[in-house]
């Protein structure tokens, strides 16, 4: 559904995150009702929520800490390295080494631009174990010193896996660096070979001490538990955790106008050029943020669709400007947004011609005759899918997590549907106008190495 750009780590090393069609084919079709209970008062956490799913087969626990790479002032990628260390430390029994136990808990962790999360799932009778393990995220890191230091090499291998043969990711990193120069938004979550080599457990501990506070973390638990069953477990594991005073997030610093920029690079792994067109979109002051968030999701769907008022239609269908195109809209924590257009231009189309076409198309979309019907089709489809899936357990959990990390409060699927219903054509037009009017543009092209 609505993704926060993130790095999924252990153990989903080769997990599948399929595209929409495959999701549509594979969605589990059995579903059941749920509600969200606010149990914050039974913990030291900023938030503690239970999504009650009486007939779920497992309990899922997600601890979300509002600190990611944007909050890191050390070597780029340190928040992610810390996540690795904490994952291993919290996941093992105290005093034992990491491979000493075999567990059927499915646990994992990820780091995004401004959040770090630790999650696990297992049968309801293991809820106590899962919560104990999750609470250990706040404890001191307990790892063999050699292991902790050498985890840096594993992060290096992860960088190799995700970035070295991924030219677009390298291009994105360069564009962000120039466009948001000096601001946390310029930072890359993984870092690079040089910064990774400078990680130390001590630096990671410093970051942890600053940000891994209960007052900066929320817990979302879903599964066949009742509030009455969960309350004592929260009191047992999540009271008397470090709270402290939180520093202000560095991204709160007023963003000087980002720079329009242009980047060109080459990559040996490419046989044809790829282009990125990027636009910084300031926050929309007049629209409720939840509505903006959902409107953004709908507009991205519309731009990617085959509807007459899409961006794909002029670029891919009507004329052969591109062989492929993907459009995304990402929300930043300061409520600004970034439009990302990734395209593979056809050989006979030059970069300038393509960029002009993108800009012209974006500025005209909301005035196309079929704009209203295109928007309505996309919205109705989203509503139809969401209503059908609204009581599927992982859909509920995903919506709660995404709304918590973006809006600050978890939403039920019902609440999310209400917001989706309230998004109007006017909101979509306001967003498209803001995109069209923004003059902060990043252009990047990556060419095959000769």
């Amino acid at each position: 559904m609505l993704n926060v750009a993130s790095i999924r780590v252990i153990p989903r090393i080769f997990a599948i995150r399929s595209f929409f069609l495959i999701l549509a084919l594979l969605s589990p079709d059995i579903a059941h009702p749920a509600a969200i209970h606010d149990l914050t008062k039974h913990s030291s956490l900023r938030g503690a929520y239970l999504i009650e799913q009486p007939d779920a087969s497992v309990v899922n626990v997600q601890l979300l800490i509002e600190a990611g790479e944007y909050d890191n002032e050390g070597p780029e990628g340190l928040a992610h390295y810390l996540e690795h260390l904490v994952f291993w430390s919290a996941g093992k029994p105290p005093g034992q080494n990491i491979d000493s136990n075999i567990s059927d808990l499915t646990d994992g962790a990820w780091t995004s631009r401004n959040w770090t999360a630790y999650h696990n799932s297992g049968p309801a009778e293991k809820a106590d174990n899962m919560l104990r393990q999750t609470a250990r995220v706040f404890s001191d890191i307990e790892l063999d010193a050699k292991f902790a230091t050498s985890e840096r090499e594993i992060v290096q291998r992860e960088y190799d896996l995700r970035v070295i043969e991924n030219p677009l990711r390298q291009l994105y990193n360069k564009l962000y660096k120039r466009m948001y120069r000096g601001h946390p938004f310029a930072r890359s979550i993984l870092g690079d070979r040089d910064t990774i080599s400078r990680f130390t457990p001590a630096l990671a501990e410093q970051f942890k001490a600053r940000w891994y506070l209960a007052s900066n973390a929320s817990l979302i638990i879903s599964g066949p538990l009742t509030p009455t069953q969960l309350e004592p477990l929260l009191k047992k594991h999540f009271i008397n955790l470090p709270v402290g005073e939180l520093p202000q997030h560095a991204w709160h610093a007023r963003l000087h106008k980002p720079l329009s920029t242009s980047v060109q690079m080459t990559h040996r792994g490419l046989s044809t050029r790829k282009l990125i067109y990027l636009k910084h979109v300031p926050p929309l002051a007049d629209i409720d943020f939840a509505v903006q968030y959902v409107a953004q999701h709908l507009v991205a769907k519309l731009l990617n669709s085959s509807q007459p008022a899409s961006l794909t239609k002029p670029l891919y269908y009507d004329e052969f400007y591109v062989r492929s195109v993907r459009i995304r809209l990402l929300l930043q924590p300061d409520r600004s947004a970034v439009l990302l257009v990734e395209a593979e231009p056809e050989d006979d189309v030059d970069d300038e011609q393509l960029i002009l076409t993108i800009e012209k198309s974006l500025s005209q979309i909301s005035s196309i005759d079929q704009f209203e019907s295109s928007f309505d089709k996309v919205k109705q489809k989203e509503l139809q899918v969401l209503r059908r899936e609204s009581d599927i357990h992982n859909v509920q959990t995903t919506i709660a997590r995404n709304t918590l990390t973006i809006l600050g409060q978890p939403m039920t699927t019902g609440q999310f549907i209400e917001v989706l219903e309230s998004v109007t054509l006017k909101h979509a037009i306001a967003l498209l106008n803001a995109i069209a009017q923004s003059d902060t543009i990043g252009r990047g092209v990556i060419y095959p190495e000769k």
Partner: protein
Amino acid sequence: MNQAARNQAKRKNPLAIIFALLPSILFVCTNTRANTAETLEDTSDTDIEMHTTPDGHQFSFHHMTEARRAAISIAWKGGMAGVPNGKENIGFYGPFLMTNGGADGRKPDELAAEFEALDAGAHLYSEDDAIRGFIVAPTADLPKAAEIANGILARPTLDARWLARFKRRQTDGQLDARKQVNQQAWMTLRSLAISNPRYLQAWSWHPLENSETITIDDIENWHQSSISTDELTIAVAGKVTPEEAASAIDTGLSGLPETNKRKNFKPLTLDFDSQTVLVHQPDADKSYLLIAGSLPSQNHPDDLAHALAVGVLGQSKQSRLQKTVRNEQRASYGFIGGKYPFSKSHEVLALEGEVETEKLPNVIAAVEKAYKKFITKGIGVVEFPVAKRIMLKRSRSQMEKPSSIAYLMTESDLRGLPQSQALSLVSRAETLTRASVNQAISTNFPAITDMLRIIVTPNRNIIQADCVIEDFSEVASCE
């Protein structure tokens, strides 16, 4: 397609989208010893009914009371042997052009927009022995989805301009793939183990130039001789009545020719020499290790035991291989073990991952030691119940999805097995014991000395190899 999907796709057909769909299904697409211990989780065999549509198409039907949608799976039996030699990649371009290039007089975007408005999914793709098609939709959307599908099947536009565009993209994608270390490793493996060039063309796109000779006439000939109402196996699962399903099937297949000219390639043979091949790529930024050997096919009675065993060997953070290579050697982010069906008769066991170049010699020794221990001593007392619980959980999850059940029913039929296999998955998993799984490992898993080692690396001298090449296309010098 994301990295993970690409990792799956590379095993057989590097850019075939369907392999994004398969992993979760392959895990459970299995056949074990017959048993009678049905459980409450399982659906009874008698829940599969046979029906015939008004137009005479026979289909198997499984009603799922709690499902929200229905899935129709159709397999056009028979392979690609009818296409000219060297043009086997029609198997990719044909279905791709049919589904993405417009149909029924409608332009590609009109057709796509019409389908996007439905709460439905669909797919069409080639396998070596069948063309497979799926529609998944709520009952209300099924007639419209079937109508669109019929246009695609019976009256695709097959526009030469769009074919040329897809070929440009696909050719460049293949060239890019060849520059990746994991793709080099798998292409080397296929080139060494498979002698029939028709399979290599279909799965490795080698030689790539052959695929560029495919014309719109080739696609039209393939379409006319392949998509018919002959030799079908049709399975329906989900919340739909037999009458509604029959109507959708008749709509979807309306107007198709009654006969086809599909025929299979000569049966696949795999030959794994126990040699070490080093693919020296001086410009590569990293190294890849792939150790592979033969497993019995998915039709083998122990297949479910093999799946559980492979899970313990290489499919989680606490797997044997992950502990060995990541936690002990500190040499890889992820080192996995998997089993991959190359055909209905052949499966490949692969131990693989990116590895820090300088640690390769130690990693190879450590992986071989860990694997030897695994096939000698089997799965441990603590590991087994955890692995079995995970397998049961996944199996039960598959049983909730109409698309998985329809796929498995079709797959059973194509394998010559009773379709009830698809529904007895959970009970078959429940019969597994540690002893039976360990027996299957010791009997059926290849010895490390019978496995092929492929190392793709920038360091020519990092290990002593039996054969050194610079590209998978040079493997003839290793044979």
